[in-house]
């Protein structure tokens, strides 16, 4: 149906292990295109593991095991080249991690360069475009050759977002992107997330319940490796179906 959000990622019966420890238990969930889905839940409930499964980072670990199905646009990511999966599904981590020896410019261009793009004009265009989308361009356009690490924490995080955008992904995963930032930088990132969903599908892990309320369209609440509740943010925040969700959202868990 035209204008209706369609499924970008479909997760079916997903189980994941670290050695003998099962970190995810039978997760079923659909992530809609051009929406922001927030993943909530207490520390250790499997949020990071979940999003690392989506772009096949989890299986890079030697002790990792994964079962179940993850479909990207209806196709199993396990039948795709993992590098291609990671290009389509970008990721931004909790701590800003620009490549320390690289300039601002190269931090953004690195993905394309690794993919063999050599055309300087094309690179310039992508770098500028990505930095603009990451709302960082105005702050760095005159110092593109400075090291990425010379920026403030909030700027570094936006640089990492620009880096993720540069390879033209379809989905961007954020693992607690603002937990290391001051409130003003955090608001900038939140605004950015909302802008991004016009072009991308966004999944964000956050410990900040209010942040999930502010930016997300859907929330998934995890608890000890299980998906307890999934639904529209407004509905879950007003009237969660599960008592566990209620207890977590209202800070009465324990």
């Amino acid at each position: 149906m035209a204008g209706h959000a369609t499924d970008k990622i479909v997760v079916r019966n997903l189980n994941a292990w670290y050695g003998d420890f099962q970190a995810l238990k039978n997760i079923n969930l659909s992530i809609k295109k051009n929406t922001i889905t927030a993943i909530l839940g207490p520390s250790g409930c499997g949020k990071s593991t979940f999003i690392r499964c989506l772009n096949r980072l989890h299986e890079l670990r030697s002790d990792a095991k994964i079962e179940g199905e993850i479909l990207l646009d209806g196709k199993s990511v396990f039948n795709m080249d993992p590098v291609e999966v990671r290009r389509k599904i970008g990721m931004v981590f909790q701590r800003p991690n620009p490549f320390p020896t690289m300039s601002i410019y190269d931090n953004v261009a690195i993905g394309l360069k690794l993919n063999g793009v050599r055309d300087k004009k094309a690179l310039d265009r992508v770098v500028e475009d990505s930095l603009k989308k990451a709302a960082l361009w105005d702050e760095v356009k005159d110092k593109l050759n400075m090291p990425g690490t010379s920026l403030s924490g909030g700027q570094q995080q936006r640089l990492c977002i620009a880096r993720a955008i540069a390879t033209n992904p379809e989905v961007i995963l954020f693992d607690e992107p603002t937990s290391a930032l001051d409130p003003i930088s955090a608001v900038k990132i939140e605004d950015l997330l909302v802008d991004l969903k016009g072009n991308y599908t966004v999944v964000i892990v956050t410990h900040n319940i209010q942040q999930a309320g502010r930016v997300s369209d859907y929330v998934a609440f995890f608890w000890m490796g299980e998906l307890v509740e999934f639904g529209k943010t407004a509905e879950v925040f007003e009237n969660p179906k599960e008592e566990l969700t209620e207890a977590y959202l209202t800070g009465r868990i324990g």
Partner: protein
Amino acid sequence: MKALDLKLDKIKDEILKLHEMAKDAMSLCLDAMYGDEEKRRAVSEIEKEADVLNTDVDNDCLMAVALYQPVARDLRFVASIMRMSANYERITDLADKIAKFRVKKRIGEDELRLMQKTLLEMFDVVIEALEGNTESLREKLVEKDDLLDDLYLKVIQKGKEAMKNQDDINDALIAIFSAKHLERSGDILSKNGARIIFIEEGRRVWIK
């Protein structure tokens, strides 16, 4: 969250207080209208106090939202209490309007007294719900609200008849207005009942 819980407890105490005040005002207003000056003053006092308390509740709720960003039941509670508080204040207003009337002849007194009694029963149903028992709350309120509507029509009928006598027109109008205010108070109280269902169950229901 301890701090939020303390705030919510305070708000809950305040809304219970407002409930009692609205009920008191309603239980006094007819006697006041029939000439009891002391009760008339009492209703007027309650009306003023309710105004102040409603403003306090409003403020406390806003602060709770601003400082604690409540969600789920807490959010439903705070948002609903703001409405309910204003509703109770409105009921004391209506009681005060009735109390300020003065009549020579008591037209439709039986019906008005019965309306008052029904309304006071509705207060008891609502207080029980506020204290946690929402079982068949909607049904109980609907039943009493329907009764109020019937009695209101009866008072109108009696008023119309009384108006045939020139000298009684004023008293007849007052009887009708009083019945209207009592009927309206029942509606408002029902809305508060619906709010309690929303707080406790997250369902939006209409009583009326």
